[in-house]
C-alpha cells in the first residue's frame, strides 16, 4: 500500500518537474516568438475570438441565474436593491474568471492539445526539428501567448454580458429600480475587485494554456495518445483552476 502511495507521489513530482522544465523552455522561446506578432494574433483569434459565442452565451445565462438567486436571497433581508452590487462582485471576482477559464479549458484548451498532438503524431513537429526550426518557438510559444492574452479578454466579455443578463432579469423581470441597480454597483465595487478578477484570469490563462500546450507537445504519437492527452488537459485544467481560485481568493482577502 505504502509502495503504491510512494509510486503516486514520485509520479506526481516527476510530472510537476516535467511541466516546470517545459515551462522554462517555453518561456525562453516566447522571447523570439514575440518578434512574430502575426502568429500570436492568429492564435488569439483561434483561442479567443472562436470561443466568443460560448463565452457570451454562458455569461448571459450565468448573469441571469445570479440575478434570480440573488434577488430571492436579498429580498429575505429586505435589500433587493443591492442586487447590482451582488451580481457585479460575484461576476468580477469569482464567476467571471472561473467559469471563463473552465469553458476555455473545454473549448480552446482541448483544441490546442489535439492540434499540437496531431502535429506530433503526424511527424510535423519532428519535420520542423529536422528543418532546423524549433517547434517550441514556432508552434508552442505563439499558442501559449495567444491563450494567455485571450483569457482576460474573454473574462471581460463574460463579465460584461453577465451584468447585462443580471440587469435584464433584475430590472425588467423583478422590477428593481434601474438607477439603484447601477448606482449601488458603482458605489460598492472598487478597483480592487476588478483587479482580483484580472489577476485570476491571468493566472488561469497561464495555467490553462501551459497545460494544453504541454499535453499536446508531449502526446504519445497515437490516436489513443491524442485522446488521452485531450482528456488530461480538461481534467488537469479544471482541478487546477478551482484549486488556484481558492488560493487566490484567500490571498486577496488577507
Amino acid at each position, binding site marked *: 500500500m505504502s509502495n503504491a502511495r510512494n509510486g503516486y507521489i514520485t509520479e506526481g513530482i516527476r510530472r510537476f518537474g516535467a511541466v516546470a522544465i517545459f515551462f522554462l523552455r517555453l518561456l525562453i522561446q516566447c522571447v523570439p516568438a514575440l518578434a512574430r506578432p502575426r502568429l500570436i494574433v492568429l492564435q488569439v483569434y483561434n483561442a479567443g475570438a472562436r470561443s466568443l459565442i460560448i463565452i457570451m452565451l454562458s455569461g448571459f445565462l450565468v448573469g441571469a441565474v445570479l440575478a434570480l438567486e440573488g434577488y430571492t436571497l436579498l429580498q429575505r433581508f429586505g435589500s433587493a436593491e443591492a442586487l447590482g452590487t451582488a451580481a457585479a462582485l460575484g461576476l468580477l471576482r469569482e464567476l467571471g474568471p472561473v467559469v471563463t477559464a473552465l469553458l476555455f479549458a473545454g473549448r480552446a484548451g482541448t483544441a490546442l492539445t489535439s492540434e499540437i498532438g496531431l502535429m506530433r503524431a503526424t*511527424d*510535423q513537429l*519532428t519535420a520542423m526539428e529536422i528543418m*532546423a526550426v524549433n517547434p517550441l518557438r514556432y508552434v508552442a510559444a505563439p499558442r501559449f501567448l495567444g491563450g494567455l492574452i485571450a483569457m482576460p479578454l474573454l473574462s471581460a466579455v463574460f463579465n460584461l454580458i453577465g451584468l447585462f443578463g443580471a440587469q435584464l432579469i433584475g430590472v425588467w423581470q423583478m422590477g428593481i429600480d434601474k438607477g439603484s441597480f447601477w448606482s449601488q454597483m458603482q458605489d460598492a465595487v472598487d478597483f480592487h475587485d476588478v483587479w482580483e478578477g484580472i489577476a485570476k484570469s491571468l493566472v488561469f490563462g497561464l495555467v490553462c494554456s501551459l497545460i494544453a500546450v504541454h499535453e499536446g507537445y508531449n502526446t504519445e504519437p497515437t490516436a489513443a495518445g491524442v485522446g488521452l492527452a485531450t482528456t488530461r488537459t480538461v481534467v488537469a485544467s479544471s482541478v487546477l483552476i478551482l484549486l488556484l481560485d481558492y488560493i487566490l481568493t484567500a490571498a486577496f482577502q488577507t
Partner: protein
Amino acid sequence: MTNIELSDKASPPDDDIVVDVRDVQYGVDSRLIFQGLSLKVRRGQITAIMGPSGTGKTTLLRLITAQSYPSSGQVVVLGQDIEDLGGSGIYAMRKRMGMLFQNGALLTDMDVFENVAFPVREHTDLPEPLIRRLVLTKLQAVGLRGAADLMPAELSGGMARRVALARAIVMDPEILIYDEPFVGLDPISLGMILRLIQKMNEALGITSIVVSHDVQQLATIAHESYLLSGGKVVAAGSPQELAQSREEVVHQFMTGAAEGPVPFHYPAPDYATQLMAEAP
C-alpha cells in the same frame, strides 16, 4: 559480415565520408537496439539501409539527425561528432540536410506552396519574388507546380511525398534522407519517387540515404547497401552482391523466405498445450 569489411577504426577521417557510424550501442529502456553498429555513407552516393521491420532503421535516422544520442560509440555527420554539437550546432548541421518522412509530414495548416517555402522563410530574408521563383522551380522538379494552391489534405499519398521532397530540397541540402519512401504507393507514384531519388542524386549530386525494406526497388538505384539485423550490420555491399550472398539471414531477407533465422512466429508457449489449457 559478408563481402566488404566495414569499419577500420584506425583510418584517418575521410572527406569522402559524410556519415560515419562507429561501433554504436543504443537502447531504449532495457531493450538494446544497436550492439556495435558501424556503417559509412559516401559523398554523392545513394546508400540503402535495409532490414526487417523492428531492426531500428528509423532509430538509426534519429541518430544521424541528432535527435537521439548513442549510449556508446560515435556518430560523425559532415565531419562532426553529433555529441560535440550544442543546440545551435545541431541546427546548423540540420540546415545542411533534408529529410523525406514516410507520411510526408507536411504542415497541415499551410498550402503546398507555403509548405515548400517554409524553410526558406524561416532561414533566409530573401525577397518574395525570389522565394516564389525558388519554390516554383522545386515544385516543377517534382511535377507539382500546378498543385501549389492545394492544401495537404487534398493530396494523394504519392503527391504529398513529392511535395515533401520539394520541401526537403528547397534549401539545397548536401544529404537527403528518405524514410521508407516506397511504402503504400501505387506503381506509378512509386516509379516517380524512384526516378526522383535518382534524379536528385545525379543532377544535384546530393548524397542520399534511403531507409527501406523494399529490396527490388533499392536494387535498381543504390550504389551501396547495408542490411541490418539483430542490432548490427550483417551484410554490406552493392545490392547485387547482397543478392548473391549465401549467408542465411541475408538470403532470407533478399528472397523474402518465411523460414530462416528471422522466425515467422513470435516466441510463444507450445501451441497444443496452450490450445488445450483452460482459459485463464
